[in-house]
C-alpha cells in the first residue's frame, strides 16, 4: 500500500500528464487561500463567521450571475464581497441595536440569506450551472475538465487569483491585522479602525469562500478555513509561523486527501477534509506544548522526580537515626509505593550518582546526601513555618510539608529562614540540617 500511495502522489504531481495533478493543485491552492484568512478567524474567536459567510454568499452569487449573465470571476467576487459586507453589517447591527445575542444574530442572518439564495436559484437559474448539491459538496473531480483560463482550469485559476489577493493583503496589512486581532481597542485608538479591519477580513472570507465554492462546496470550505489554522495554533506560538504552518497543513491534507480519496474511491474534497481533521487530532495528542501526550509525559516526569526525592529523603532519615540495620533496595521500593515507578525512580537515582546499591544495602553518595539534606531542610523549615505562623497542630504538619518540600527552592528557603524565629530545630525537636 505505501508504494501505491507514493505512486498516486507522484502521479498527481505531474500536472501535464495527469488529471489528478490539477485536482491536487486546486486542493492545495484552495487550502492555502483559506488557511491564510482562517488563521485570523481562529485567533479572533470568530471561526463560525466563516460558516455564516460561506452560506450567506449564495444569494450574492446568484444575483451576480443574473446581472452579468456569466460565471466570470469579477462579478462573482463583487457579489461575494457585497454579501460579506452585508452579512457582517446585519449581524453586528442586530447584535448592537436589536440586542440579539451575537450567536443568534449570526444564525438568523446567514440562514435567511442562504434561504434567499436557494429561492433565487430555484426561481431563476435552475438547470443552469447552479446546482444545490454542487453548492454543498463542490465538484473537485470535475475541475480538470472545466474550460481553461490562461492555461489553467478555471476553478484553479480563480483560487490562485484569490490566494494572490490574500497574500498581498496579508503583506500590506500585516501589522494592522496583527494589532487589531490581538487588541482591537488599542488598534482603534492608534487610528487603525478595528471595525474597518473586521470588514476587510470578512470580505476576504467571502471572496475566498466564493473562489473555493465550485471546487469544494460551501461546507468543506469552512473546514478548510478553520481546521488547518486551529491545528497550527496548537503547534506554534508565533503568528507568522502559524500562518505558514497552516498553509503547509492545508497543502499536506490536500495531497494526502487526494491519495486516500483515490485509494478509497470516494469524494476527494471530503477526503481532504477528513485528512485535515486527522492531522488536527494528531496535533491534539502530540503537540509539544498543549498536547495530551506531552501533558501525560510532563506529569509522569514530575511524579518520578517526587518519588526519587522521597527516596533520597527517606535514606537521609535512616542515616540520621544511625541505625545499624541496612535498608535494602527492595524495602526502599516498597516504602515509596512499589511498582514500576518506584523501580524507575531507584534506577534514576543510581544513574545520577546519588545512591549506591548492593542487593542488601542502599546508601547515599556524597552528592545524594547533599540533595537529600536540602530536601529534609525544606521539609522541616516548612513544618516550622506551619506551626509558627499558621498555628497548625504538630500532628498535622508532616503531610503538607511532605507535599511542598519538592517545590521549595533556595530562594524560598531563604525567605522561610528570614520569616522564622528559630531555624535550628523543627517543631518535632529534630535538627534542621544546614
Amino acid at each position: 500500500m505505501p508504494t501505491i500511495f507514493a505512486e498516486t502522489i507522484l502521479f498527481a504531481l505531474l500536472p501535464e500528464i495527469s488529471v489528478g495533478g490539477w485536482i491536487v493543485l486546486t486542493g492545495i491552492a484552495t487550502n492555502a487561500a483559506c488557511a491564510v484568512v482562517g488563521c485570523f478567524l481562529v485567533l479572533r474567536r470568530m471561526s463560525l463567521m466563516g460558516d455564516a459567510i460561506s452560506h450567506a454568499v449564495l444569494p450574492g452569487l446568484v444575483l451576480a450571475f443574473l446581472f452579468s449573465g456569466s460565471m466570470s470571476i469579477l462579478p462573482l467576487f463583487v457579489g461575494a464581497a457585497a454579501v460579506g459586507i452585508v452579512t457582517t453589517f446585519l449581524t453586528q447591527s442586530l447584535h448592537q441595536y436589536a440586542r440579539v445575542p451575537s450567536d443568534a444574530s449570526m444564525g438568523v442572518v446567514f440562514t435567511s440569506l442562504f434561504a434567499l439564495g436557494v429561492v433565487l436559484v430555484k426561481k431563476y437559474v435552475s438547470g443552469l450551472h447552479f446546482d444545490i448539491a454542487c453548492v454543498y459538496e463542490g465538484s473537485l473531480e470535475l475541475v480538470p475538465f472545466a474550460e481553461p483560463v490562461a492555461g489553467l482550469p478555471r476553478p484553479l485559476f480563480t483560487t490562485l487569483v484569490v490566494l494572490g489577493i490574500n497574500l498581498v493583503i496579508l503583506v500590506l496589512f500585516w501589522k494592522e491585522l496583527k494589532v487589531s486581532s490581538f487588541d482591537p481597542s488599542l488598534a482603534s485608538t492608534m487610528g487603525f479602525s478595528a471595525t474597518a479591519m473586521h470588514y476587510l477580513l470578512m470580505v476576504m472570507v467571502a471572496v475566498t469562500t466564493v473562489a473555493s465554492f465550485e471546487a469544494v462546496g460551501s461546507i468543506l470550505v469552512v473546514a478548510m478555513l478553520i481546521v488547518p489554522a486551529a491545528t497550527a495554533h496548537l503547534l506554534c506560538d508565533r503568528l507568522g509561523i502559524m500562518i505558514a504552518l497552516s498553509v503547509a497543513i492545508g497543502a499536506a491534507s490536500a495531497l494526502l486527501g487526494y491519495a486516500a480519496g483515490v485509494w478509497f474511491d470516494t469524494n476527494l474534497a471530503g477526503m481532504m477534509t477528513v485528512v485535515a481533521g486527522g492531522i488536527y487530532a494528531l496535533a491534539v495528542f502530540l503537540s509539544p506544548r498543549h498536547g495530551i501526550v506531552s501533558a501525560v509525559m510532563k506529569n509522569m516526569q514530575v511524579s518520578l522526580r517526587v518519588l526519587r526525592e522521597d527516596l533520597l529523603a527517606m535514606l537521609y532519615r535512616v542515616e540520621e537515626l544511625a541505625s545499624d540495620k541496612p535498608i535494602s533496595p527492595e524495602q526502599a521500593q516498597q516504602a515509596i509505593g512499589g511498582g514500576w515507578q518506584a523501580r524507575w525512580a531507584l534506577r534514576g537515582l543510581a544513574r545520577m550518582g546519588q545512591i549506591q546499591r548492593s542487593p542488601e544495602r542502599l546508601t547515599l553518595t556524597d552528592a545524594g546526601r547533599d540533595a537529600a539534606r536540602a530536601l529534609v531542610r525544606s521539609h522541616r523549615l516548612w513544618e516550622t513555618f506551619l506551626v509558627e505562623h499558621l498555628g497548625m497542630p504538630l500532628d498535622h504538619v508532616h503531610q503538607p510539608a511532605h507535599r511542598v518540600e519538592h517545590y521549595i527552592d533556595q530562594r524560598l528557603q531563604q525567605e522561610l529562614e528570614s520569616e522564622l524565629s528559630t531555624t535550628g530545630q523543627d517543631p518535632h525537636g529534630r535538627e534542621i540540617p544546614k
Partner: protein
Amino acid sequence: MGTTAFEIHDMTVAYHRRPVLWDIDLQIPEGKLVGIVGPNGAGKTTLIKAALGLVPLASGKVEIYGQSYNQQRQIVGYVPQRESVDWDFPVTVRDVVLMGTYGQLGWFRRPGRVEREIADRCLQQVDMAPLANRQIRQLSGGQQQRVFLARALAQAARLYFLDEPFAGVDAATETAIVELLHTLRSTGKTVLVVHHDLQTVREYFDYVILLNMRLIACGPVESTFTQENLQKTYGGRLTLLDEAAEAMRIRESQ
C-alpha cells in the same frame, strides 16, 4: 496653573440611550498623576474610552492639549484592562511591545531596527528584557501588566490612560508600576489611572477624579480626596440619576 493636558467639556456618554456618564466637566494640568476613583459601575472605564474615541459621546467634547483626540492620537498612550485581550495569541513579549510603535508608524510601514530598539529599551524599563522572546501565555499576571506598560512606553506619548494597572498584580509589580509613574511624571507626562484601592490614593497620586456617573470632584488630592467627597462618591445610591436613566431607557424601548 500651567498647561492643560486634558479637558472634558460637558460630556455625556450613553449606552443604548441610557446615560452612564452625565455632564462631565474637568481639566487636568500637565505633569500630574491622576487617580480615577469611584464605585463599580461609576463609569471609570467609560470615561477613558470616551476620551479615546472608543465609545461615541452623546454630547460634549474632549480635548487633549486643546485639540480633538483624532488630531492628537500620536501623543496619547493607552493601557486597556489586562483581561481585555487573549493571552493565548501567538505573539512574543517583544511583539506586543512593538505594537506600541505602530501608531507612530502609520499605515503600511513595518517596524524596523529602530522600533525594535525602542521596544527593548521599554522592556528594560519594566525589568522584562530577559523575557522578550517568551510567548505571552507563559507570563504571570504581574508580568503581563508590565508588558502592557512597556507597550505604552513604546507609544512615546505625553498623556497616558491606564485602566486598572494594579488589578491582580503582585507587590513587586505594584511597586515597579508606581516607580514608573514617577519616572513618567518627572519627564512631564500626564497619567490618568483607573484605581480601586482607596488606601493608596494619597500615596500614589497628585490629583484625583472622583466619579459616580457624574463628576463628584476633581482636583489635587490634598483638597479633593476628603471624607466628605468620598461619602458623596460611595455613600448612598444616586437614586435620582439612576431613575432618570432608567426612565429614558424605558421610554426608548416602548
